[in-house]
């Protein structure tokens, strides 16, 4: 096993699946010779050739359409949108077209596309590079939306996404790309989509998070431990569909829950989780289910980023409200 950062694990997953299936194609802006602006496709063109790993003209909508057309010829396209803030340019291809392919063809066609894109704040990018726009994807039936929080998960989830016969939006948090290393097996392995992971077990409180907020939640749980509270941290990993079973089982055990998202509060991934808990586990609750989220402004200019983004202190503060209710 090798120690890998998340971006290395992603490259490794792409390489593994390109070796495994000659129908897998990787393309996008600067992904070929340049290996992607974050080097997520580093070395792939050299290994697999320009026929399978290629640069496209600079147009996100075109990249989305290209993926759909290639899928119709039996390929398994893995396009990259260079930054997820650019997703508005390709919204019709994603939500209007690939998400509907199976449905509008009465189940006779499909779009096995994995659209990868970096997102998320904390690394001082210019405007439109760091927004958390995942709600745009989770609100569209027909898509699956995956957000890994560790190198190990990233590889296993990406392989599952590429093998999936429906379109998957695979969101890679910018801050997590190189924030830590982890043992990652060299061979192919899969982590099922739609399955959350309990990243830390606990008995007093369930903290549900995804993406970069998983690390913040784990930090908060450690601090809470010092004060005598045992917090369980669930990493959603797939935010559409949600792993309701794991969430409910945990809430039934702890009786208290909170949900953490990096996106603005009005971008309601967390709200959706809260509603599911209300629907299914209200009688197990000892306290209201609270949320930690970013304020409802546009994603901030970089100098205000650190204050704007939710962090472990915000999580601890809210956790105490839930714990002492």
């Amino acid at each position, binding site marked *: 096993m090798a120690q890998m950062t998340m971006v290395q694990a992603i490259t490794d997953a792409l390489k593994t699946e390109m070796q495994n299936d000659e129908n897998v*194609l990787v393309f996008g802006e600067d992904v070929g010779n340049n290996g992607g602006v974050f080097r997520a496709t580093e070395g792939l063109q050299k290994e697999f050739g320009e*026929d399978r790993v290629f640069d*496209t*003209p600079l*147009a996100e*909508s*075109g990249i*989305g*359409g*290209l*993926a*759909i*057309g*290639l*899928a*119709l*010829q*039996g*390929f398994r396209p893995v396009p990259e949108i260079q930054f997820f803030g650019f997703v508005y340019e390709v919204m*019709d*291809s994603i939500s*209007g*077209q690939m998400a509907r392919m*199976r*449905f*509008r*063809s*009465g*189940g*006779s*066609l*499909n779009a096995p596309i994995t659209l990868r894109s970096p997102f998320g704040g904390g690394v001082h990018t210019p405007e439109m590079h760091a927004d958390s726009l995942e709600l745009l994807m989770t609100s569209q*039936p*027909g898509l*699956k939306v995956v957000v890994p929080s560790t190198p190990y998960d990233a590889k296993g989830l990406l392989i599952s996404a590429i093998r*999936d*016969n*429906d379109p998957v939006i695979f969101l890679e948090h910018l801050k997590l790309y190189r924030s830590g290393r982890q043992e990652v097996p060299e061979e192919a392995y899969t982590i099922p989509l*739609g399955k959350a992971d309990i990243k830390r077990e606990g008995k007093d409180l369930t903290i549900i998070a995804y993406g970069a907020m998983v690390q913040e939640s784990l930090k908060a749980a450690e601090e809470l431990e010092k004060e005598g509270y045992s917090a369980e941290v669930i990493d959603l990993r797939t935010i559409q*569909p*949600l*792993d*309701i*079973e794991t969430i409910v089982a945990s809430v039934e055990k702890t009786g208290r829950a909170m949900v953490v998202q990096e996106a603005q509060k009005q971008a309601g991934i967390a709200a959706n989780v809260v509603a599911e808990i209300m629907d299914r586990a209200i009688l197990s609750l000892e306290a209201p289910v609270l949320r930690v989220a970013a304020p409802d402004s546009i994603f901030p200019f970089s100098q205000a980023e650190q204050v704007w983004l939710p962090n472990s202190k915000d999580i601890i503060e809210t956790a105490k409200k839930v714990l002492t209710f």
Partner: protein
Amino acid sequence: MAAKKSQQFDPVETLHAIEEKFEMVQVLNEEGEIVNEQADPKLSDEELQELMSRMVYTRILDQRSISLNRQGRLGFYAPTAGQEASQLASHFALKKEDFILPGYRDVPQLIWHGWPLHQAFLFSRGHFMGNQMPEGLNILPPQIIIGAQYIQAAGVALGMQKRKKEAVAVTYTGDGGSSQGDFYEGINFAGSFRAPAIFFVQNNQYAISTPRELQTSAKTIAQKAVAAGIPGVLVDGMDPLAVYSVTRDARERAIRGEGPTLIETLCYRYGPHTMAGDDPTRYRTSDTDSEWEKKDPLIRFRKYLEAKGIWNEEKENEVIEKAKEEIKAAVKKADSAPKQTVTNLLEIMYEEVPFNVQEQLDIYKAKESK
């Protein structure tokens, strides 16, 4: 690129010079006479009769569809009369292995490519079984988002190139569609990859009510190909032989690895935009209508074939009767489709039904089995 040093570059003169190059290709004039021997595709008598039959059949299909819609027996329908040469003569130059990415007015090409007529009716009625594509049929259901099919066509064409197929991706939009970003991205991507695609713009003069001259200051839509570095052709879209000829040439270039072509067919839709309440008298005069009716593709093709002695009223009536019977049978078949349920729809969301959808499926299965 060599710099021009002797005199100043004149961008206006250059534009005009390019625009003047885009002359309309015509083979058969309004009187049914060959006016361009060189471009005459020299189809056999059988081929000419077959193309005429398809145009007559499709005109009847259009008339019947409009009347079925008025009786409430069809749903969404975009009339096609006036566009038979653009639609059917272009399709006549294609092969089964070619992949069609249509707009919503392009139902005739899909039918002649093999989409069963009763399925086209089910599509119109809003039944999911309409779009269930038979194995091996190379078409997509009609696209609703104007221009979206253009970028997908670039992808299908690139896929064909990678698969080393002797086939092309063919897509259609209208004059309005040529203003969309996806139009430019589609022709530019396909050009950049030299992918085997043919991009049609059926310029029927109006995008719903907005006239062609408001879409662009470009003199022709065909010249937009220049910006993408691909060949562009302006063709008389009421002339089946010209449309066939330029399509066949574009297909041959694509198969030879020479990349995509943009073809603008100048045509006219006699009817409304769709049957959902559009009233063309709000934006067109009857003078314009009758001017275009004189150019009618069926009239000129009929004259041409009659002069050759290979078409007559009897033959035409045979086609009309056949069309009427087949349409009747297809309506009957569409009528017999099972009632559509929410259960049906939830089942075709994903390959494997996820947790949230499964819960709803259980609810609807119980509801709908009552």
